[in-house]
């Protein structure tokens, strides 16, 4: 019979958030905990029978028994069976707080070898394996097979999918491939490690393996929705779907410029670009595009300081080009010749990285010629 599950991972509670100020980092840590509790509420509301937590629940070295108690208080109130597979950030080292705490009876934490936990009432077997070090190089899934394919077999695992073409061939984080998932024979793989939710294996409309992602984004490279996967898994097929839960988002917003001379003007553009409610809520990466005055010094710290009054948190990047009136650079002058040479090189170059170097070279040269200094951009 189908089993109702909630699949979550990568909470990273007690993260340092070193990129944020002290108060903001503390706020964010609190928000992670609140999101965790929302997930527990969701599991109760959905009457989930099994809760699969695929690792990186906390940062080893920053979490102690208090955090375990926090987890366990939530777990002990649930009807669901809770399965935890420690990841590379919360490995089950011998001094891990996982082992020094007396967990509620409905909680099971996996160790370094594949283990099967039978749930006779649900006619289901949950397999799992946990990190016991910060790194696991061996492809431990390669030789794993479920014992009885007639049962409903679930696997909870923290690992790195190396099936994608851009993935590194070797990995320190329990590498596995899609073919290994298929051979293992389980009906659903609850994966953790990547922070953005991703379906790894879908068959006939049924999600067989997926990364739930972190329920809250943790950096600017984690834009988009974050949450958990929830639904039914069964021998006839799985009906799980993504549930968004994040309270804040990381967002990238381009801010087109039109020849601004001063940082305050750039700040005004950014403020006008984003509605206030969103500015107060989310993390913004503001990328200034278009053109700015060639003499404008793009002082990131100063600009972020100006914007701090208007944004909950933001980071600025400069992708704006200094606006030069190329037509004013007569080729009979050295400036004109310089500009013409580099523009000709730019037109001939096809590699984007090299193009950017040439472009920057042009700007630096003109800065040196026009302004007697190289402007910080």
């Amino acid at each position, binding site marked *: 019979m189908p089993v109702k599950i909630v699949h979550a991972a990568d909470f990273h509670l007690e993260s340092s958030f070193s990129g944020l100020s002290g108060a903001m980092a503390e706020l964010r840590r609190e928000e992670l905990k609140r999101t965790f509790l929302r997930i527990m509420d969701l599991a109760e509301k959905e009457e989930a029978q099994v809760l699969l937590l695929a690792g990186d629940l906390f940062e*080893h070295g920053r979490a102690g028994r208090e955090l375990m108690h926090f987890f366990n208080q939530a777990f002990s109130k649930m009807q669901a069976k809770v399965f935890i597979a420690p990841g590379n950030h919360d490995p089950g080292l011998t*001094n891990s707080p996982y082992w020094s705490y007396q967990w509620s009876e409905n909680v099971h934490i996996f160790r370094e070898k594949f283990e099967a936990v039978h749930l006779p009432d649900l006619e289901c077997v949950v397999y799992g394996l946990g990190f016991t070090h910060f790194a696991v190089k061996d492809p431990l899934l390669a030789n794993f097979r479920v014992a009885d394919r007639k049962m409903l077999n679930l696997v909870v695992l923290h690992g790195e999918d190396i099936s994608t073409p851009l993935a590194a061939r070797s990995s320190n984080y329990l590498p596995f491939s899609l073919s290994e998932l298929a051979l293992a024979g389980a009906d659903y793989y609850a994966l953790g490690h990547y922070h953005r939710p991703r379906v790894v294996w879908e068959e006939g409309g049924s999600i067989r393996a997926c990364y739930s992602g972190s329920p809250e984004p943790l950096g600017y490279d984690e834009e988009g929705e974050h949450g958990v996967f929830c639904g039914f898994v069964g021998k006839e097929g799985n009906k799980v779907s993504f549930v968004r839960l994040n309270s804040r988002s990381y967002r990238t917003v381009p801010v087109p410029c039109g020849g601004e001379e001063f940082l305050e003007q750039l700040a005004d553009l950014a403020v006008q670009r984003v509605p206030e409610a969103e500015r107060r809520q989310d993390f913004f990466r503001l990328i200034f595009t278009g053109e700015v005055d060639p003499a404008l010094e793009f002082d990131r710290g100063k600009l972020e300081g100006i914007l701090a009054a208007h944004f909950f948190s933001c980071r600025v990047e400069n992708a704006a080009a200094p606006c030069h009136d190329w*037509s004013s650079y*007569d080729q*009979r*002058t*050295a400036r004109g010749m310089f500009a013409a040479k580099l523009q000709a090189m730019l037109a001939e170059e096809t590699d984007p990285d090299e193009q950017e170097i040439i472009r920057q070279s042009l700007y630096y040269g003109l800065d*040196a010629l026009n302004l007697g200094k190289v402007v910080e951009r």
Partner: protein
Amino acid sequence: MKLDRLELTGFGKFVDKVVELGPGLNLIYGPNESGKSTLQNFVRGMLFGFKKSGNRRSYDEALQRFQPWLADKYQGVMEYTLGDRTYRIERNFTPEGERVRVLDGATWQDITADFPMDRRKEVLFAEEHLGMNQVVFDNTVCVRQLQSRSSDQLAGEIRAKLVNLVSAGEEDISLQQALKVLDEELRKLGQSERAGKTALGLAAAKVEELERARQAALEVYGEIRAAEENCRVLQDDLLELEQVRQHLLRQDAAAEAGEIKGTLARVGAYDRKIAAAVSALKDGYREVPLAEKDNLLLALERQSMAGAREQELAEKAGILANKLEHERQILANFELFAAFDQESVVAVENSFTRLDEAAQQAEMLEQKRAELVNLRRVGDEQFAALAGCDRLGQAGEAEVDRLEEEINTLTLQRWPYESERLKLNAANLAERLKLKTVYAVLSLALGTLLGIVLGITVHWSLGFLSLAGVLFALALWPGIGQDKRKLKDVRRRLEEAGRGEEASGQELKEKKERLQALLAEAGVASARELKEKMRQLALAKHSRQTVLLELVEVENNLDKLRQRVQHEARELAGRFLAPAGIVTPGQRVSREDIEHFRGGVNTYLELKARQRDLWRQEESLAGEREKVKAELETVSSTVQRILGAAGVTAPAEFLAAYESNLHLAELEKSLAGLKLARAEVLGSQSVALLEDKLARLEMALGQEAEPEVRKREEIKEELRSIEEKIQETKELIANLQGIIETRLQGVNNLANIEAELLEAWGLKEQVIRRKKALELAHRTILQVSQEVQREFAPLVNSHIANTISLVTGGRYVSGRVDHDLNLKVVVPETGEVKDVGQLSMGTVDQFYFALRLALMELIGAKFPMILDEPFAQYDDRRLETALRVVLELASKHQALLFSCHRRELETLARIAPDQYTVINL
């Protein structure tokens, strides 16, 4: 190009100021702050506007500087001639209403749209008409007033401008300075990744540091992994040892509990025994003849056996008496059968058999008789129904036949339509006959033909179709024959009908009436019916006769049989059944009566036999009872004697006393022993203490199955060994965990290190890219510099010669721009080649002016020269020389010379009166 007219509607200090310019040299003279600079900027502004290059929203500071002081409007008009056309430029300078219009000077038609617009929305008419942009304009045709005030500064400024002009073509752009700036940036970045505190060095160092950290982390993890593995193995061992220890503890507890239970059980047993002994000892001894005990027991046993036997026999006698009485009562019911035996039974059965057979025969005859009577009745009824026909007789029947025949004949003869019907019938038959004949012939022919053709052309089997045709024809043939016969008959009748048509109607009528009368007498409707009934009448008569004869015979037989039966019945009843009380004389005998008789006789005989047997048993039983009674009396007397001797009334008392005496002696012996043994078992503990300990042990052991029972010494020895091993293992684990903890300290999470490393790589790449870009810029500027030197310097060299000679009045006749873009000249006094920068400020100034002029020539400037106080530092001689040059140049191009010194005015007035236009501001 020649400027014709300037209208400053509102610009700086000017309001509605009009300046008319002439060809050639225009000396715009006015004291300081008279507006010379304003007028120059007006010309620049009218041509190019005041927007900053590349920025449509930003304006040059000149826009603010030349806001009208007094006028409402900030605008002006400029008219100029280019080639053979004149143009009128109207411009509004205010940012809100900024607008420029280019009008054809002759027609004032707006031709603004004819000129392109840059992204600042600036109309580029000046670029098109002048062939240069504002930068080039500023650096060539507009020789501005020098800014420096001190002579040293002035010299430096001129030299710098000279160098810039030579090297960059723009006096305000210094390639060398730019290169220095880039060099400085590169220096700050760092030459290589090893360059310590530079950006590149720091970025590279960061990457290296993180790589080392990552490697260190991996190494540490490797070490930790081994330690962790050992730890896990030891923990598994510890778990097993602990399990063994728990098991041993349980065994020990169970053993101890067993011991305590045993002890308590033994103590309990002792207690019970002691209590019983104490209680028994209370009663004391009794006097009994111990030797008679066995005799008493024997006598009691015999007494018991005899009594039981006597009782048994009495019961049997009672049962027997009851049986005898019961048999007697039953026998009384069968006394009537006492006179009969088995022979009687046989005789009765035979007699009844005969009787029964006779009765069955009689019954059959009765049935037969009844049938015959019924047949007779039916026959009578039939006969009655046919009375009429009987009366008519055979004669009447013959007459009817005759009449019918005659009538038929007459009818046929009489009625003509009968012949018509016959004709029609004949025609139909003939037609049908013809059709059938045709069908037969056709089917025969067609079938045969088709069969042959298809058999030959398609398949031989289809030849059988001809056979089908033949068969069909043959099928029709009988029908054809029948129709022929019918036709013949109809035709015959038709002939007869034709003859009969003439018969008399009256005769027919009479005959019909006679026929009807006869039929009525017979009670029939037609002759046919009459015939039928006559036939029936004959049959009825015959049948009736037969029935009567048979009936008489049957009745005779029946009478004989009845008599025989009566005789037999009387015999049976009188001799046997009536005496047995089964029937009364004269009563009819049934099978049941016979059965009753046989059963009664047999039952009586059986009962008598049983009675005799029971008498025999009764007699035997009585004898045995007498014997047992005698035995009982003998034994009882023995018992009484012994009991009497013991002074007791009951055997139990005797035995109890006997036992008691024995028991008491033993008890006394054992009581002391029991107490001693009990004390030994308990030792120093009390029962309560042991019970409490047992309860605690049992609670600890719980509901689980009791472990195997072993000796406690063995268990304790094993426990000691296990606990030692446990302690050792714990110490090993603690050691390993300490090692792990120590190694983990200071090692960051690998994932965090890798994330930082990725970021550091990114930063390093960024620095490298910046370095590459700066290097490229540097290289390119150098290349430009070299090209300038290669391409521009020769041009400068060629052009500068004329102008230097002109400007210096022949003192210096040539100059050269060297590889480093330094202008060098030959000092006439010494013949030495010197850098111009090393010459006097005045000479440098001259060279600067000459170079500006050379540049103008070089670019083929179309615009008039604008000279703003270019000769401020010149002495009179140089001034005159320079003015002559300007006049010479002004003969080809319009020139605007701004000056606040009267020297220029006076010198010009002296050397070239009427060759210039003066405009006073």
